[in-house]
């Protein structure tokens, strides 16, 4: 395990000053910075979402995923414990597991048949004693020293997180009480996966990380949002930010009003009288004990926990090079959903995902910045909305405070 912040190669880069409201474009484009992020952010003192407990229901179940560029296997062992293993054979570095999921007793590398148990211990090496008395492993080879690299693992409310670093605080301390409570608010019951898809984003991963923390854009870029009253600037809500700035939650709640008024807002545009012919996808059963219509929470660096009406999901962000990233959507319901609630969720999911009425633009906006940034890597963005500090906001979501918080976290991990 690596030791956390500021251990990487020199990226040849320093932040120009202490101003986190101005981001140099080169952080989105430079290969050296990207390489250093692998070690210092993704393999640094951070908790990275791996998968759900519900996806590994039985002993022997496994799933493959990524932390940054690093391929990871998550297993459930014979005792029911979860294990996070780097998916790289100790022998030659081949990926041990190349299928996305399954159930197995051993993880066996196809290249030379080195075989590991579900905890990553090297159990067997092919021809370890040679053939016909000839060959075999070197006398000083110790199997105990050549297991799969193990991650630290923590679970919270059905989510499984992994960390490469011993410096990462316990998950509850990592999040802080306020943002832990907002996870508790959404993940109230045993989860059920309704489906998966992923979205290839034509931009650096940090542009999407910023986008999810940018509550300023929601009612501007996503015209549909504003039009149909899921998020409007004049709705109640706010932005919560963890004490260290790393994580956030932005939420909007339906302002109490007469039913007729709400019904009207759901199907009519304030801008151009644009109406939905079939508003059934906007129905909302208030199942979480409040009137919140939209709650977007981040867990630094790469997870989003989403509630939009009854559309629940986790989104995992995986970098695919300096100028590309892949967003893995796992769409959720609860185990005890009845048919009507399931149908409601399936319809509400028209709002999100790569074809989502209110989220498809996020796939496009980052690409616009990426193309703009390429022209001048030393120029800087400016994000003055809501001041220059990292302050939570009650009532208003027109702020870039959580984006500034992300950059504080990123700089702390990177040591720059």
């Amino acid at each position, binding site marked *: 395990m690596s030791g956390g912040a500021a251990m990487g190669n020199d990226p040849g880069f320093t932040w120009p000053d202490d101003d986190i409201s101005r981001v140099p474009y080169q952080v989105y484009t430079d290969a050296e910075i990207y390489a250093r992020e692998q070690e210092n952010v993704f393999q640094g003192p951070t908790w990275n979402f791996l998968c759900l407990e519900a996806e590994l229901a039985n002993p022997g179940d496994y799933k493959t995923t990524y932390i940054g560029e690093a391929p990871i296997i998550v297993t459930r062992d014979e005792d029911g414990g979860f294990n996070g293993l780097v998916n790289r054979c100790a022998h030659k570095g081949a990926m041990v597991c190349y299928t996305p999921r399954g159930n197995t007793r051993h993880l066996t590398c196809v290249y030379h048949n080195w075989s590991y148990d579900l905890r990553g211990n090297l159990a067997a090496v092919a021809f370890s004693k040679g053939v016909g008395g000839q060959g075999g492993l070197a006398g000083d080879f110790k199997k105990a020293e050549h297991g799969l690299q193990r991650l630290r693992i923590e679970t919270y409310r059905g989510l499984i997180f992994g960390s490469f670093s011993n410096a990462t605080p316990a998950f509850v301390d990592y999040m802080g009480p306020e943002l832990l409570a907002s996870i508790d608010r959404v993940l109230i019951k045993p989860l059920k*996966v*309704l*489906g*998966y*898809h*992923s*979205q*290839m*984003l*034509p931009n650096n991963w940090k542009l999407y990380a910023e986008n999810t923390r940018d509550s300023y854009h929601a009612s501007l*870029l996503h*015209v*549909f949002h504003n*039009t149909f009253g899921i998020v409007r600037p004049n709705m109640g809500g706010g932005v919560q930010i963890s004490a260290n700035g790393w994580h956030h939650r932005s939420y909007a709640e339906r302002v109490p009003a007469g039913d007729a008024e709400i019904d009207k807002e759901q199907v009519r545009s304030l801008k*151009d009288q*644009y109406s*939905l*012919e*079939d508003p*059934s*996808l906007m129905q909302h059963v208030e199942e979480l004990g409040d009137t919140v219509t939209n709650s977007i929470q981040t867990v630094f660096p790469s997870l989003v926990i989403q509630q939009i009406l009854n559309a629940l999901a986790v989104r995992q962000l995986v970098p695919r090079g300096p100028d590309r990233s*892949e967003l893995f959507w796992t*769409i959720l319901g609860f185990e005890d959903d009845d048919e009507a609630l*399931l149908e409601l969720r*399936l*319809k509400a*999911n*028209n709002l999100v*995902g*790569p*074809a989502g*009425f209110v989220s*498809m*633009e996020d*796939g*496009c*906006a980052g*690409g616009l910045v990426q193309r703009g940034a390429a022209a001048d890597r030393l120029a800087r963005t400016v994000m003055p909305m809501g001041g220059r500090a990292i302050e939570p906001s009650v009532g208003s979501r027109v702020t870039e405070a959580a984006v500034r918080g992300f950059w504080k976290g990123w700089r702390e991990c990177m040591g720059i």
Partner: protein
Amino acid sequence: MHGDMTGLAGDQTLRLRLEALFTDYVHVIDGDQLEDWPEFFTDNGRYRITTRENFERGLPLSVIYCDGQGMMRDRISAMRKANVFDPQTYCHTTSAVQVLGHEDGETQVQSNFTVIRTMNDGAMSVFACGRYLDRISENAGALKFAERIVVIDSRRIDTLLVIPL
């Protein structure tokens, strides 16, 4: 419908009619006449796009799910008036039409498709390929989709999906 479609002559007539339906469908989409797209469905017809992974594992999630023509028209009006995306066009190629059977006045058909997407800047890519799984019925002399499930082979969608497949 299948009452008229028995025997070799009926089978050949059905195939010609299906081919015409699928041809008209792709030209409406590729020709950007999307306001006509819902008309290929029965009033309460269903259209959904799902991934092969979700479909084969019995997971109910869709990438797009329209239950009835109203939701289809909403898709198109949102695309025209609300959603933001780089201008793009599709070119569909369809093939391998196979009649799977007849039941309750509907014909079940599967076929393959490939969509090449061309962006405003000229970039072209294979955007999607997979299978159409259709239930087709005859209304007032015209064939309509009671259901069209689009099963895309890849779970990964490049940037965004706004034009129907």
